[in-house]
Structures are given as C-alpha cells and as structure tokens.
C-alpha cells in the first residue's frame, strides 16, 4: 500500500514565467491570486505572469492586465463629467469612478468638490461592489485636485515594482528625482519634475521598470540608470555620492 501523500507537488520554480492554463502544482496547497483549480485538482495559472511560491500558497504575479478597482486603493484619474451632485472620474479602468460630495459641506470643505472636466484628482477607492462604478473619496489629507505636474501611464501590473518592497523603489525615486511623486494603483503616476531633464529621466526609469520588471536585480539597474545620468539628487549632491 502506498503511503498517503500529504505533500503538494510543485511543478514550477519560484519566479518562473508561467502562461494561462499552465499547471503550477497538485495537492494540498492554497491557490492564491490568478490561480485556479481545475476539475482534476491541478492548480493552474489564469494569466501570463511570474510564479510566486510561498509557504502553503502558490500565486501568480501578473505581467498583463488592466486595473480592477479594490477598496482602499489610491488612484489618480481625471474628471470626465460633472452632473448634478455626481462627479464621474476616468481612472483608466473598465469601471469608471464616481465621487459624490457629502451633504452639508461648507466653505473650504465644499470648495474641494468644485471640480471640472479635465481636472486631475487623487482619490481613494471607498467602495466597489465589483459590478458598477466604484465610489471614490477625496476626503482626507492630500486627496483631491492635483495641480501642475505631469502624468505617466504604466501597466498597472507594474505598480508594485514602482513602489517596491517596503516602498524602497519609490523612496529611491523620490530621493533622486524629487519628492512630488504619486503612484496610483491604477497605473497612473503623477509627478512634478524639477526640470525637463528630471522629467525625461523619470520617463526613462518608469519605462525601464515596465520593461524589465520580470528580471531580478531591477533596483540595481534603476539605480545605475539614475547615477549614470549625472543628475543632481534632491539634496543637491551628485547622485551616487554618499
């Protein structure tokens, strides 16, 4: 009699590039994001992405896909329509956002909601039922209309890499390229560059992250790109100096 197999059989290595339908594992292991279990109990990927194997769970870090709102997400969008008490916001998703100003606001608190089509806003996803427009909120520190600056649109699946583990990448960008950088979970990045040179470098860095996120060592490559540009960092010293 064969002994009971109580160990899951993992069929891929960590960080392997996996494709939709690809078998990842069989047995007692939890299917995480972008993993489904087929009729025979095989765990398979639903997307093109990188396998991420942790204790007791296997998930896929996606490399493709559009933004689906989640409660709590910070998003950058533009006001597309103002109709009565409803402000429609384009957050580059199949689910356009909606801001509904709370009742009874006065003065400055109310002025926050005087938005017009074309305005850039930083908002938080307050509620999303998965089917209709997510409810956005601009109550709160730093939320609301964004003035000036420019915008870069990145594949939303790359946002975690732009932020980095424990915000490491974002802090690197802020220290070298200027503190005014806001990364929306919807892949819209707002930044206020100090100069045209900073702006162009920011675009190069973001393009590099987008292109190379699946190859490890990204932080080092980004750092090298910034240092080789000869740009002065926020403290005024040459990037790379201690």
């Amino acid at each position, binding site marked *: 009699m064969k002994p009971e197999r109580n160990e899951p059989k993992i069929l891929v290595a960590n960080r392997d590039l996996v494709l939709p339908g690809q078998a990842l594992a069989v047995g007692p292991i939890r299917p995480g994001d972008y993993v489904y279990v087929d009729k025979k109990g095989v765990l398979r990927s639903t997307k093109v992405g990188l396998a991420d194997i942790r204790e007791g769970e296997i998930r896929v870090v996606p490399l493709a896909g559009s933004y689906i709102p989640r409660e709590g997400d910070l998003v950058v969008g533009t006001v597309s329509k103002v109709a009565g008490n409803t402000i429609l916001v*384009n957050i*580059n998703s199949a689910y356009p956002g909606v801001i509904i100003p709370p009742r009874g606001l006065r003065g400055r608190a109310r002025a926050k909601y005087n938005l017009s089509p074309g305005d850039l806003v930083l908002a938080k996803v307050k509620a999303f039922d998965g089917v209709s427009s997510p409810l956005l909120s601009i109550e709160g520190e730093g939320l609301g209309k964004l003035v000036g600056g420019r*915008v870069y649109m990145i594949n939303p699946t790359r946002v975690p890499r732009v932020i980095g583990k424990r915000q490491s990448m974002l802090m690197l960008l802020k220290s070298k390229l200027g503190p005014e950088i806001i990364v929306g979970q919807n892949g819209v990045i707002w930044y206020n560059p100090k100069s045209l040179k900073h702006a162009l470098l920011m675009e190069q860095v973001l393009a590099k992250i987008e292109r190379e996120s699946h190859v490890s060592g990204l932080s080092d490559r980004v750092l090298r790109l910034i240092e080789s540009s000869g740009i002065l960092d926020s403290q005024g010293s040459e990037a790379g100096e201690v």
Partner: protein
Amino acid sequence: MLDERIAAELVGGYIRELAASGQRKDGRAFDEIREIKIRPGTFTKAEGEAWVSLGATQVLVGVKADVGTPFPDTPDKGVLISNVELLPLASPTFEPGPPDENAIEMARVVDRALRGSNAIDMEALAIKSGELVYMIFLDMYALDHDGNIIDAFALGSLVALSRTKIPVVEVTEEGEMVVKEETFDLPLRDLPITFTFIKIGDALMLDPTLEEELVSDAAITISIDSSGRVCSIQKRHGSFRVDEIKRAVSIARSKYPEVEKILREQGGLV
C-alpha cells in the same frame, strides 16, 4: 491601452505648456516627422501593397486591379476607387460599421492628392474606349492609431501603387476579354506626398501624435508633388491665419525631398 479621453485630459495641459516653450513631448522639432518604416514581406493578396508605420501609427494599404466599364464622361480613362477603413482594432474609439465622416474624408483627401498631381496615368488604364477599363481599388486599412493616420495612408498608398503589377487584359476582335499571364506596372508618374500640420496655441507642428491631435486647436493637410507644387489641401478642424497656411505650405515643400528619399530607399520606388 491609453483611453483617448484620459490622454487628452491628462497630457493636454503640459503638451500645451511644452508647445508654448517650443517643445514637444517626444522631443521632436516642430517640423520633424516621426520614423517611417515600411515592413518587408507579403501581407495581402493585393496587386500592390505596403505595411507602413509612422512612429507608432500603423497602416496597411492594398491596391487591387479589376476591369469594368468606364464612367460615361471619361470613356478613355481608368477608374480609381479609394476606400478607408478605420478598423475598430486600431483604436478604442473606432467602431465597427461603414466608413464614418472621418474615414470618408481621409479617403477623399488621399484620392484628391493623387488626382491633383495626375500621379496615375489614367489614360494608360483604358483597354477599349468606352467599354472596358481597369478599375484600381485603393484600400487603406488603419491598424494602429497614434495620430496622423492620413499621412501614413498617403505614404502607404504611394508605396503600394508603385509596387502594383496589373495583369494585361486585351479585347479580341470578337469582343472577348482575355487575361494574359504578363503584367505591367501601374503607371505612377508623380509622388504626391502629404503633410499634416496641427496648431496648438500659436505653435504649428508637423506630423502630430495622437495626444497632440487630441489637444490641437486646428489641423490642415497639404499635398506637394514632385515639382514642389501644392496639389491638394484640406483644412480639417479649427482655423488658421493666412500667414500660418503659407508657412505650412513652405515647410511641407521643404520637407518633401527628405520624405521622398525615404520612400525611394525603403519602398524601393523607382
């Protein structure tokens, strides 16, 4: 992935700022055209074809030859029929269906540039006066819209027409139509090149990207033939001052040799 509305809204502001200080988002000069690439290979069953990219804009143009009866008022001339399809896959805002006013305008503008320059020798396309002539179908397919599709169409049309080989058709004494094995080159005797300008504030820019098009205040398309003459003009949206139009014509004429060179080298035009 960029929705057109968000593009216009998000980038509109600083594209205007850049324009006011003499700059463009992709770093081009105001009179600089994006990279033109003609893709090698066979992609259709047309008698002449070209897959052309202008920056990220991509179009596929096919020329097909058929025979038919001439128009009654031009019994000795072939017939040119130009058609544009703004395929829904080229942009999130293109919808399936018959050509809308934009598609029709583009087709007619490209067609007019060819007629205005007498680029195609239509008399050479008659087989039997009043009875049988060649029908030349110029089908322009938009595949990927990053602005200035019309200039891409015009470039693609020139390359496709210059590559077009038409089967020789003869009419016997008994009035029978005979299609022969041999082919002849479509008689293209001029190269009318199209230049589209947009205006953002007071800045006049050549070959707009999609983002630039979306924030533009006005647009105009000008065709120049090989002798430097203006052979067709179409003002699209907005308004221009007289001096702006003159400047656009002048710039177009000065850019002609550079584009012609690219067509000849990459497109193999003779």
